[in-house]
Structure formats: structure tokens, C-alpha cells
């Protein structure tokens, strides 16, 4: 990792709150999202989906559908490659079933027709002969020997023999002597928890427009978190060269991890290839719920020992996650994150993934961490309550800090956990009085953060203004942050920079917009590209002045002689250097290509007050405060927005949201009426406190902020509800019937 110096310097533009460059487009309806583009001669695609949770496909007869007037093509699993790479193969099978359907909503065929109505009518004419198989929906049931097997032969070598074939992987993290640790404790609490699968709930369903020509070139427009990922995946599934498939990312109407894979994109491409016409595919909301990635659902046991004075002596967790009908590594991240906030001598976590007949998991904001940390932070709170200790003091006493060997292995560098805990302790919210049936809860949150492959080009126009070209879809204001960092580094006004998200043919491979990586790694690459351009500008000016490049320096947006020995020259501004560039060697551009590391882990603390109605079990969130280390808040409004948005998604997860299955294995609530995400009237203000503990891995100290805020709400609210209701809640969501049942059982 590169360690950057002077990251705590004063900034002129970073930290201000200018209007985002895509703001006008987005408030006038002009911004183009996935479903907003049409093409001449365009066809419409519709997808036929399995009504069964688990069934063998004996045959598919598409002849009647193909014969319908207006139908131009039908595709099934046979139209897609099965790549050797296991992960790509799973994506292929998930986009279109082969010999079996693995969950309710699994795609089995797709039609392209002259109108959506004709395409829909054609779906009814596709005859699929199913042999219905027994299904399994619950992770604990799926792990039992004798459970219906979702897929055979998918277990990794580290799974012991004798377990159900649904168990695909096992992982283990930690250090120290657990037995000795628990023996030192004055109190040991052991609890089991369950969390429901939830959906990212982005408001924009998946949508794309594909156009393949007969000579093998293809263009694809789609809403995605990563158009390079779409290119590589679709090229593999369709047998195309990546370079011949140009993918353009539309504006994206939310993703939260759910748009880090493909669903309808290869289907639209296959239909376009078969028809020679552009094909548009747009998912319905029901399809989004039934067939795109929810989170894992989880079953977790946690055991923690504590001394009377509040020192944690040992922590142990067993996590059983199901990522749906395919192998899934999300449990590894849960097992690593579970105890990340603590400095422990003895800690061990064990993770298992088991397949169930549910849709393939897709990442959702800090994937795997909210469930694990919910379980751990619930037990910590129970220990504090039993021992009569202040829950913030206990967390401060046990907090991980610089030099702590983390529970998952690495030793922490500069981290902001202690600062956020102390900010929470000093905040008036923590000591505000509570009324009857009210409770206060808190929880720490953690996310690893990520850097990854990133390319940025900075092009200088002849008038001295600047275009930044990058490859990561702007999902929540990143163009603004990137423009701010470019303007800061060059010493020019923010308005003189335009940042664009380029298509896959116009910039080098850039990893998916995930892992809270964009402001960190695209920002880093932008700053480095600007430094590259500044070096080139210095060389140009040195040439004009006839002196050594070492004899000039960059200061305040202009090139100056480096000292009195360099000669007496009037400084040249960017505008002057740009205007002279045709005579000094041609156009000027800066580049940076990097596989960035040093993302810097992120911690936050959430504080919440709730009121529980003892007659109905209904919970109202009264007050909510988020404390989080942002490293450096480049555009503080959008940092606050991440903290508020993540907190509210967590509130939904804690109180309402869940995938509900019937005995037939079908999803019973595939719509926003029955899968209830928080609405404005459910919520109070979400107060935010940004801490800035600079990340030494970024030239300005930035660390990702997007994912951590969804982690603490689950336990913070569970702890608040448990204190308000006088009974420990151990299952999410804490919907009114579940809370009422616990209150009645308490007596």
C-alpha cells in the first residue's frame, strides 16, 4: 500500500457542498435510466419464469409461441454458453435454467416480439413439462442430512463428509484460547438468532436495450453498477469477444449491490442476435423480487464472556447463511466482520453456507456483516444489561484501535472506532430522558471497504477546462466528489471540471461500483491523473522557458519558476498552458491506472430511541443518530446521505422487511405492498455526525462510507426494542406480531 503524506492538510474545495453536475438532469426528468432508451425497429422481450420452487425440466416446447404473429424469437437455456469458470457458469444458469429450475421465479425461456402485449401472450404458449421435486427453503433444514438437495456436487473440499450436499463451504477465523477466555468470564451469555432475507429494493427494476449485428458486434445499454462486469459476463455467456461488445451504463436508479451481476442483459443480447433487431428488456417489480438477488437469510449462535468490570474475555460465533440455490461466499464476510469492533484475546467464528430453493443471493450493502454484527451486538447488550454496565463504556473499553490484531487476522492501521464511540458518548442524544415503553439501543458497525481496478483519464481542453473520464456508474453523487477532487488538485474552480462515466470502449477496465470503493479509488486515480497532467504541464512550460523541468514548480493552479535561480518568468496558468499546447507538443492528458489497495476499514456507531406499543407490538423509531468515520468527507452532503440512507434501509430490515415463503416454496410477497420498505411517515429525522480520521492509503485521506451505515441499525434497534419491551428479541424482522408474541410470552 502507498502511504500518502500530508493527508491532513487544508483543502479549498474538498469538504464544500456544490451542486452535483447531474442534478439538473435528474430534477427535470431528462436523465436517462435503463428503461428510458428506445431504438428504431426495437422489439420487446419478456421472460417466462418457473412457478415451482424446485423441478426438473423434462422438455420445453416453444413452437406455438414462435408461431404467434409478431413473435420474432424465443430463447431457452440452450442458447447460452456454460463457461468453465464456476462463478460465470452459475450466472449463466441463473439467467436461464438448464435441466432444473431451482427457485420460484427462475427464468426458463424468453420471447422477443413487436410489442410487450404480444410478448406476454407468447409466454403463455411456451409449454414447459416439469417434474416437481421436493424443495427446501430454510437454511437450518437445508443443512440436515436427508434434506432435498438443491444441486449435487457443489461442496468444497473443506466441508466434512456426512453433511447434507447442500452445504457448500465452511470457513473459520480467529485466534486465542476460547476455553481459557470463557473460564475467566464472570458471565457468559449464549443466544441463537435468525434474520430474514431482505431485498435491496432499488426503485428502478433491471432494464436494458441490446443491439447485436450480424457481423458479431454488439452494443448494450443497461442500468448496472459495473458495465465492465456486464461486458465480461455477457461476452462469456454469448461467446463474444469483449472488445466487440460495447456496454454503456445508463443512469442507475439504485443498486445497493443488487446490480453487480446480470439477469436480463444476456437474454436481450441473445434475442437481438437471433432477430437482428434491437431488443429491450425491462423487469417487472414482481420479477425483481422473485428472480434477482436478495440477501442471505441467516441462523446464528453467539457466545460471549464478560467480566464484572466489562472486559470481554472470549467471543464465539457459528454462522449458517444461505445464499439461495447456488454456492455463496457471503458467510465468509460475516464470519470476518462479526467481532471486528473488538480487541479480543480469544475469538473464533465458524461459517457455513447451505443452498436452498431461493433466488441466487446478490450483495446488499456490506454483504454478510449486518446479520453477524446484529447477533454479536445483541449479546454484548444483554451482557451489559445483566451486569449493570453502560453499553457505550463497555464498547469503549473493548474497542479495536490502531495496532489491534483484528478478529479476522489483519492488524488495524488508523481507524476511527474509538472516536465515533466517544462522539456518541458526548452527544446529547445519549443522555436524553426516555418515557414509558421507550428504549434506547446502540450498536457498532464495520465494513472492510475496497479499492480495486480503476482507470481515470484527465483531458485538458484548449481553453484550460478539464474533462475527467472514468468507468464507474454514479450511484449517489460520485461525479460531484470526483470533480471536487480534480478541481482541488488542479487549483481550478469546480465548475471548470466535467466528469463523465464512459462506456467500455472508451476507458480501461474498471471494477464494479461496490465495496464503497468509488470515492476512494476513482478519487485516488483522479488525483494521480491530475498529478500526471501537472508533471506534463511543467515539462511544457520548462520547454517554453528553455529551462530544466526541475526548475519549474506547480503552485496555485499555475506553473512558476522554482526559485530565483530558475530565471524570471511570469507564471503560466492552466488556460495559458492549454492554449499553447499545440506549439509545445500537442494535446495534454493525465492518466492513472491502478489496482488500488489501502481502502482503509470503516467503523460507525448508531444510537436509536424507540417506542414499543405493548398492545400491538408495533415499534416507532423516535430518534436516530449516526456517528461515522469518513476519513475525509469530500462532499459532506452525500456522505450524510449515505449515512441516512443506510440507516433507513437497516431500520426496514430490523422492523418490517422479509421474504415470506409458503409451504409450496413460492414467494408470497413479491411487491412493495407486502414487502414493506420504510416510507417517509415511518421515520424521524436521521441525525448525522461525521468524524474525519484520515485514511493513510488515500492522498486526501478518504475512506469509503457507503456500506457501514446499514450494519448497526439491526442490533441498535433490537437492543432498543428489547429494552423497551422488557424481553430479548432474537429474530428479524421485529414485526408487530413477533414483538407482541414475545411480550405475551414474557408475561
Amino acid at each position, binding site marked *: 500500500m502507498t502511504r500518502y503524506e500530508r493527508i491532513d492538510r487544508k483543502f479549498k474545495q474538498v469538504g464544500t457542498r456544490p451542486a452535483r453536475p447531474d442534478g439538473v438532469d435528474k430534477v427535470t426528468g431528462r436523465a436517462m435510466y435503463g*428503461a428510458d432508451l428506445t431504438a428504431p425497429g426495437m422489439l420487446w422481450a419478456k421472460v417466462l419464469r418457473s412457478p415451482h420452487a424446485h423441478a426438473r425440466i423434462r422438455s420445453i416446447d416453444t413452437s406455438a409461441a414462435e408461431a404467434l404473429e409478431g413473435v420474432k424469437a424465443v430463447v431457452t437455456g440452450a442458447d447460452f454458453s456454460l463457461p468453465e469458470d464456476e462463478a460465470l457458469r452459475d450466472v449463466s444458469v441463473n439467467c436461464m435454467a438448464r435441466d432444473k429450475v431451482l427457485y420460484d421465479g427462475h427464468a426458463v425461456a424468453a420471447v422477443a416480439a413487436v410489442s410487450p402485449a404480444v410478448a406476454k401472450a407468447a409466454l403463455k404458449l411456451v409449454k414447459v413439462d416439469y417434474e416437481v421435486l421436493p424443495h427446501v427453503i430454510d437454511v437450518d433444514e437445508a443443512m440436515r442430512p436427508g434434506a432435498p438437495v438443491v444441486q449435487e456436487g457443489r461442496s468444497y473440499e473443506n466441508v466434512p463428509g456426512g453433511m447434507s450436499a447442500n452445504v457448500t463451504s465452511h470457513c473459520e477465523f480467529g485466534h486465542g484460547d476460547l476455553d481459557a477466555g470463557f473460564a475467566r468470564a464472570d458471565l457468559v451469555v449464549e443466544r441463537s438468532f435468525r434474520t430474514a432475507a431482505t431485498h435491496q429494493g432499488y426503485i428502478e427494476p433491471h432494464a436494458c436495450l441490446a443491439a447485436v449485428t450480424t457481423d458479431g458486434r454488439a452494443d448494450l445499454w443497461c442500468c448496472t453498477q459495473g458495465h465492465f462486469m456486464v461486458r465480461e459476463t455477457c461476452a462469456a455467456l454469448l461467446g463474444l469477444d469483449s472488445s466487440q461488445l460495447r456496454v454503456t451504463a445508463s443512469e442507475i436508479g439504485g443498486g445497493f449491490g443488487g446490480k453487480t451481476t446480470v439477469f436480463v442483459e444476456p437474454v436481450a443480447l441473445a434475442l437481438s442476435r437471433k432477430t437482428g433487431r434491437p431488443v429491450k428488456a425491462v423487469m417487472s417489480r414482481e420479477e425483481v423480487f422473485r428472480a434477482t438477488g436478495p440477501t442471505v437469510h441467516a441462523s446464528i449462535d453467539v457466545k460471549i464472556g464478560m467480566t464484572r468490570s466489562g472486559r470481554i474475555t472470549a467471543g464465539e460465533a457459528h454462522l449458517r447463511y444461505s445464499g439461495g440455490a447456488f454456492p455463496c461466499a457471503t458467510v465468509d464476510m460475516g464470519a470476518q466482520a462479526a467481532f471486528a469492533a473488538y480487541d479480543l484475546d480469544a475469538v473464533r467464528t465458524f461459517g457455513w453456507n447451505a443452498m436452498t430453493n431461493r433466488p441466487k443471493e446478490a450483495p446488499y450493502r456490506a454483504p454478510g456483516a449486518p446479520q453477524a454484527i446484529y447477533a454479536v451486538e445483541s449479546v454484548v447488550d444483554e451482557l451489559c444489561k445483566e451486569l449493570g454496565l453502560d453499553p457505550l463504556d463497555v464498547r469503549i473499553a473493548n474497542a479495536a484501535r490502531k495496532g489491534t490484531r483484528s478478529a479476522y487476522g489483519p492488524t488495524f492501521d488508523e481507524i476511527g472506532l474509538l472516536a465515533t464511540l466517544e462522539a456518541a458518548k458526548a452527544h446529547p442524544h445519549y443522555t436524553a430522558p426516555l418515557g414509558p415503553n421507550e428504549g434506547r439501543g446502540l450498536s457498532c458497525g464495520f465494513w472492510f471497504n475496497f479499492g480495486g481496478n480503476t482507470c481515470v483519464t484527465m483531458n485538458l481542453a484548449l481553453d484550460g477546462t478539464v474533462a475527467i473520464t472514468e468507468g464507474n456508474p454514479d450511484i449517489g453523487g460520485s461525479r460531484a466528489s470526483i470533480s471536487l477532487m480534480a478541481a482541488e488538485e488542479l487549483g481550478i474552480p469546480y465548475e471548470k471540471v466535467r466528469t463523465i462515466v464512459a462506456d467500455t470502449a472508451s476507458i480501461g477496465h474498471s471494477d464494479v461500483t461496490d465495496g464503497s470503493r468509488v470515492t476512494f479509488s476513482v478519487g485516488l486515480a483522479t488525483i494521480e491523473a491530475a498529478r500526471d497532467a501537472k508533471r506534463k504541464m511543467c515539462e511544457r512550460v520548462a520547454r517554453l522557458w528553455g529551462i530544466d523541468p526541475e526548475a519549474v514548480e506547480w503552485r496555485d493552479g499555475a506553473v512558476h519558476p522554482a526559485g530565483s535561480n530558475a530565471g524570471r518568468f511570469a507564471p503560466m496558468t492552466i488556460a495559458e498552458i492549454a492554449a499553447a499546447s499545440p506549439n509545445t507538443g500537442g494535446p495534454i492528458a493525465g492518466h492513472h491506472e491502478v489496482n488500488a489497495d489501502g481502502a482503509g476499514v470503516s467503523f460507525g456507531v448508531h444510537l436509536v430511541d424507540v417506542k414499543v406499543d405493548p398492545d400491538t407490538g408495533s415499534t416507532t423509531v423516535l430518534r436516530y443518530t449516526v456517528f461515522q468515520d469518513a476519513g475525509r468527507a469530500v462532499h459532506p452532503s452525500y456522505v450524510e446521505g449515505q449515512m441516512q440512507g443506510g440507516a433507513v434501509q437497516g431500520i426496514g430490515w430490523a422492523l418490517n422487511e422479509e421474504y415470506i415463503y409458503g409451504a409450496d416454496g413460492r414467494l408470497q410477497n413479491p411487491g412493495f405492498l407486502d414487502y414493506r420498505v420504510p416510507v417517509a411517515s415511518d421515520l424521524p429525522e436521521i441525525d448525522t455526525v461525521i468524524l474525519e480520521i484520515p485514511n493513510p492509503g488515500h492522498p486526501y485521506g478518504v475512506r469509503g462510507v457507503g456500506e457501514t451505515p446499514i450494519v448497526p441499525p439491526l442490533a441498535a434497534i433490537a437492543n432498543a426494542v428489547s429494552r423497551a419491551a422488557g424481553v430479548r428479541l432474537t429474530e428479524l424482522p421485529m414485526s408487530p406480531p413477533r414483538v407482541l408474541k414475545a411480550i405475551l410470552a414474557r408475561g
Partner: protein
Amino acid sequence: MKTIPVSATVNGDAVEFLCAPDETLLDTLRDRLGLTGAKEGCGSGDCGACSVMLDGRVVCACLVLAAEAEGAEISTVEGLAQGERLHPLQRHFIDEAALQCGVCTPGILVAAKALLDRNPDPTDEEVRYWLAGNLCRCTGYDKIIRAVKSAAAEMRGDAR
């Protein structure tokens, strides 16, 4: 299926179109009239992303048949700005960072304007309940409520 001829006013302009009997107003706006500002988030009236004004009422365009629009006055997010001048709600949404992905924004702006047209000085609670039919998954609503209230204050002529 026979198509139905419809005459209506959209954002002040007279329009005529043919629609299928089962075609939604949302599909007509987006696919026949090229007004893609209103979005389909659910198609069942639960998310509000397709909110438009129909004869002075906020409606989910996905729940209205295009044929019902005969003789109606419709306005969409595309009609909110006056030429180059943004509506105060639009400006305050940008200034307050009240959008992240922006896909719910058109519907929320249309609904918020309808609120301010009938109640120029709403409380937080009134804004929150009025917008309860408009889902936003990114912002947690906090900055949206602030933007609506600060736009309302400007429109009332209050000193900020």
C-alpha cells in the same frame, strides 16, 4: 385489439394519440409521447415513481388507463421548469442533496408541488405523510423533507 383515439393536454401542449384499451397512461407518456421522466418502479401504485398530475390530482400513471385521459390536463416532471428557470423545488432538491440515484425524484417533485399548491407552509409531519406514497430507497427521506420545506419557505417569500 382496436386502438382508441385520445385528445389531451400534456404540460400545456395539446396532444393526440392512439392507445390500446388496456394501455396505461404511464406507457403512453413514456413510449408514445417520449416523456420518460415518470418511471415505472412497481406498476401497482405502491412506489409513486410514476406520479403525474391529472386534472389537478396526483395520480400514479401506472394505475390510470390512457383512454381515461380524454380531455384531461396532465402535467409531468418535464413541465415543472419554466424554460431555463427551474422550479424552486427542483433547485432546493439539488442544493439540499435531496437525491442520490434520482429515479424517485420526478415522482416526488410532482407530489411535493401538489402539496405546496394546496398547503404553502406544511409541517414536517404533513410533508412526511403527503409523501408516504413515494418510495425513496437511497436518502432515508431526511434531505427530501428539508428540501421541500426550504422550497416552501422560498416560495412564501420567507427570509432563509
